[in-house]
């Protein structure tokens, strides 16, 4: 399927999802759905670096929060203007993309686990900076006032959902386009063997920088509308461990080799967590979410290291015969 056709199909699916949501006639569907879509974007973005080039990023929360805090800062700076969310998303994407590029430049000479530790350190540093930055509320946090009316759809929650839906389509279409391009082959060669990739003419450092910038930019874009989603943003929720853990767990559970994996993983884990959050059986403890993710992550790493997509592919091969 060509990229244009795929994009069209993805937009149709997205439109159908939105229409089904409208049919429920309650905003909660959009509230829960937003979180799931947010995770689809984060997982897909994480996979652009972690899955395609094999560099595990523990700092998703930092990139996400930088997007969110860019919105807070810009909204405060242009207090009279009411900047539209798409503009804030572009700004958040640029900020996180640039930080991704900078982080990549400083850390990509480190291989394997050392790179991962550096990303973790970045998250801690950025969180400390934001916590001590009074302009965006510091440790007290910042309140965001949602406009009463949203453009086009009326309900502001539906508007936020629609924006996240569009970003999801963009992230997935980008991930899929990368896989089929020269860039995708370059990424795969880096993941498999960096020295051999260099010897084959692949500019590994440059491609890794492209991957960190792209991955960071999508995370930042996903973070930009977040202050409006929660209406109160503080460093603890913006830099929540849940973002870092989920963005790794979802591609791992779904499968890391192509764009389908993070999508399936995020839909699966994201829905379970949303269900657990409101379930009375589990007592609606948010901590239960991470427990579920942890247990699933361990079982998949042990039983299905190639994720759900890997399991399905194995089934398909067995069914087709040798």
């Amino acid at each position: 399927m060509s990229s244009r056709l795929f994009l069209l199909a993805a937009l149709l699916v997205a439109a159908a999802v939105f229409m089904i949501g409208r049919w429920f006639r309650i905003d909660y569907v959009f509230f829960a759905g937003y979180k799931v879509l947010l995770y689809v974007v984060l997982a897909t973005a994480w996979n652009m670096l972690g899955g395609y080039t094999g560099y595990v990023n523990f700092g998703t929360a930092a990139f996400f929060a930088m997007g969110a805090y860019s919105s807070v800062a810009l909204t405060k700076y242009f207090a009279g203007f009411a900047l539209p969310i798409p503009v804030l998303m572009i700004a958040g994407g640029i900020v996180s993309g640039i930080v991704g590029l900078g982080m990549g430049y400083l850390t990509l000479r480190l291989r394997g686990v050392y790179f991962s530790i550096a990303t973790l350190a970045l998250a801690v540093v950025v969180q400390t900076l934001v916590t001590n930055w009074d302009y965006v509320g510091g440790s007290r946090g910042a309140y965001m006032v949602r406009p009463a009316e949203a453009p086009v759809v009326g309900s502001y929650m539906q508007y936020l959902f629609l924006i996240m839906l569009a970003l999801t389509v963009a992230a997935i279409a980008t991930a899929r386009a990368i896989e089929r391009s020269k860039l995708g082959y370059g990424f795969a060669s880096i993941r498999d063997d960096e020295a051999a990739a260099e010897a084959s003419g692949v500019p590994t450092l440059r491609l890794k920088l492209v991957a960190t910038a792209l991955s960071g930019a999508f995370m930042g874009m996903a973070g930009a509308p977040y202050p409006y989603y929660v209406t109160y943003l503080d460093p603890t929720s913006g830099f929540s461990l849940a973002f870092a853990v989920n963005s790794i767990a979802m591609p791992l559970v779904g499968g890391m080799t192509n764009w389908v994996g993070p999508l399936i993983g995020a839909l699966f884990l994201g829905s379970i967590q949303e269900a657990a959050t409101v379930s009375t059986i589990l007592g609606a403890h948010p901590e239960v979410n991470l427990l579920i993710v942890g247990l699933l992550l361990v079982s998949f790493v042990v039983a299905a290291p190639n994720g759900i997509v890997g399991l399905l592919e194995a089934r398909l091969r067995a069914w087709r015969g040798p």
Partner: protein
Amino acid sequence: MSEALLAVNGLGKRFGGFVALDGITLDVIRGERVGLIGPNGSGKSTLVNCLCGTLRNESGTVRFDGRAMDGLPAHQRTRLGMARSFQLPRPFASLSVAENVRIPLIYAVNARPGRRLGEREIDARCDALLGMVGLAPKARQRPRDLSQVEMRKLELARAMAAEPKLLIADEAMAGLSHSEVDDILALLRRLNERGITVILIEHIMRAVMSFSERLVVLVAGRKIADGIPDEVIRNPEVEKAYLGE
């Protein structure tokens, strides 16, 4: 005589206090077949890594095809026409055999000024390269399905895909059977006949002696002999290095 294709001058490399290479000077002329031998740990692979840009040499210079290579990263040296195969095959495990050969075509050949292979040309090239090494029937398989000798052939095909002027084959035959060694040797000879300069690093003396026009011997990071193979192996210093006193 025109300038040598590869001119190494006073190349030195140390790892901490250990001197891995000590003032290596070496010229390789266009079209030549040079054998490089030396006991284990004598610095052969370090030399290859310094030539190809995988490691940085602390002293000395490398000139290739009339250009100074110093400080250039490995991928640019590959693009300029220097290709290598690895001592232990390092295929791209998640890609098919054909895709392994495709990487240098899109990243090395297509990166040269004025070159732009189309999709169809790339496919044809992959087929031709795999045909040359006899891997065409396995084009769609993964490297893990290949035998040891096939893996070595893939390694060479991938190096050749970059259209090199100089091919550095780092122990392309280690662990292969007698007839498999002959297979690889015939392949390297065919490449040389097409005008590709070959540096062969090898432990199997039969292979080196039959292939090389010139033999270079490294011992403990220093070049101790350089000349016609039959004379070099009778050199008392070389005998001493290999057999002891």
